């Protein structure tokens, strides 16, 4: 597998990045007097270069967890530390991917990928080669100058993935990134994602509804409770690497999926 070519970095040594949440709660004020407790005392630590899957029922605060980690909202209680620094505002060294690809329709694919560079007021020319090689890695050669409307949903999400990686962030936050992609493309995209985030290694928080997807891709799976969200259990995934579609037929894969389902059952999520 080709590695992403070397790229300019703002500083020569990147800070070791890991994520630590201690006693994190988030309360949204809906109207005066009515509150919604989205997260309740979340404790978790994610090691550097760890691919961490987060699974939980709908509305359990998974997205809120990512928003807080990115510094887009501040927690109502508790503290979040990313790369050794407490988060108290938008974190600059983060890439985000959402369920919707959020490509700008009026920009070509390559200009969409270069958007973070533009926002950070770096020279676009310095990153164009990197953008092209990322697009090549996800199989979008020849679509650099197409508009998003000319791409399929899967291809659009690949372009969004390139956009999240262009500035080489240490931390990748993904909120159900493949939820609107068909099942076959979805597994392919997941394995592509692994390739892109192991070389160079990135810390990834990957929110998903699919237990199988979480187990297939992750080093560690966090299982969340229904709202208000808490971390119910943590599983280490000891499947051999690199993961392939064949990892799915490993007995350990099925055992883990079964165990995680068991946690949901015990919490009354699955019946």
């Amino acid at each position: 597998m080709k590695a992403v070519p070397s790229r300019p970095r703002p500083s020569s040594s990147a800070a070791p990045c890991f994520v630590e949440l201690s006693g994190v709660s988030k309360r949204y004020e809906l109207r005066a007097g009515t509150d919604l407790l989205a997260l309740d005392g979340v404790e978790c630590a994610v090691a550097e270069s760890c691919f961490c899957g987060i699974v939980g029922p709908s509305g359990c605060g998974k997205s809120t967890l990512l928003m807080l980690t990115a510094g887009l909202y501040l927690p109502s209680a508790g503290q979040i530390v990313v790369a050794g620094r407490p988060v108290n505002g938008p974190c600059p060294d983060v890439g985000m991917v959402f369920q919707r690809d959020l490509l700008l329709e009026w920009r070509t694919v390559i200009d969409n990928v270069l958007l973070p560079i533009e926002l950070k007021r770096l020279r676009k020319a310095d990153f164009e080669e990197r953008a092209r090689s990322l697009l090549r890695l996800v199989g979008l050669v020849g679509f650099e100058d197409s508009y998003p409307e000319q791409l399929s949903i899967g291809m659009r999400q690949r372009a969004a993935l390139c956009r999240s990686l262009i500035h080489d962030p240490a931390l990748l936050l993904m909120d159900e990134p493949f939820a609107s992609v068909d099942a076959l493309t979805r597994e392919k995209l997941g394995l592509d994602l692994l390739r892109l985030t192991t070389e160079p290694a990135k810390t990834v928080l990957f929110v998903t509804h699919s237990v199988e997807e979480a187990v297939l891709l992750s080093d560690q799976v966090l299982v969340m409770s229904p709202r208000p969200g808490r971390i119910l259990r943590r599983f280490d995934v000891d499947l051999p690497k690199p993961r392939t579609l064949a990892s799915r037929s490993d007995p350990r894969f099925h055992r883990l999926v079964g165990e995680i389902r068991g946690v949901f059952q015990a919490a009354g999520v699955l019946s």
Partner: protein
Amino acid sequence: MREARLNVTVVLVYVLLLAAWQLAGSAFSVPAFILPSPLAILQRAARSPGVLAFHTLVTLQEVVLGFLLAVLASIPLGILIVSSRLLERLFYPLLVAFQAIPKVALAPILVVWFGFGLTSKVSLAFVTAMFPIVINTVVGMARTPPEMIHLMRSLGASRLQIFAKVRLPAAAPHIFGGLKVGITLSMVGAVVGEFIASNSGLGNFLLIANNAFDSPLLFAVVIVLSLLSVALFYAIEVIEALVLPRPLRRKAIDLELGARA
């Protein structure tokens, strides 16, 4: 090729309709003061091209000035309404209440304020054009999904960057929709103003022709008015085509089709 054939068909249909009108007048012996024939209208227009051109220019000037002022006021107002909840609470109900007033009712007040000249007509064209431009700006600006704002903020984007790189381009097809409605409405505003009190302009000329029982001239003025509206409308379309990148242009067409459906 198909495009060319389409155009030929359109022209042919127009020619046929005009011919039918021409023939119908004599066939059913409709009196000329009720429905003058197209040729009679053309001949009447040809007899006083200078006067017609003079009044057209007066109206054009009123419409363009009023419309430009409306654009300058409405787009920023729309942006302000979207960007601040206080300003939304302040201006939005006011705007809707103002739109509920028939603009004709404002004409006498504006004449009292600004007199018989250009200013009263420009201000009426201005107030009639404003509403659709403000509303479409608001609708367009509000279209950006919250995740997009999250994404932009996570990349360290400032409010100005979010506005310039996401919100405004996303709103552009809607704003142009508002401009197209606005330009035709400002035409209505200007002519109504001329009806109420003026000494020149196509609306004024229409009244003169009416008082003189000059039906062919009356028709000629109405036709010039509608041609002027069409020309201004397409002028906006041309600007839109020059300003918007291709995918947004298609979106603008989709919007119009949606509005028609």
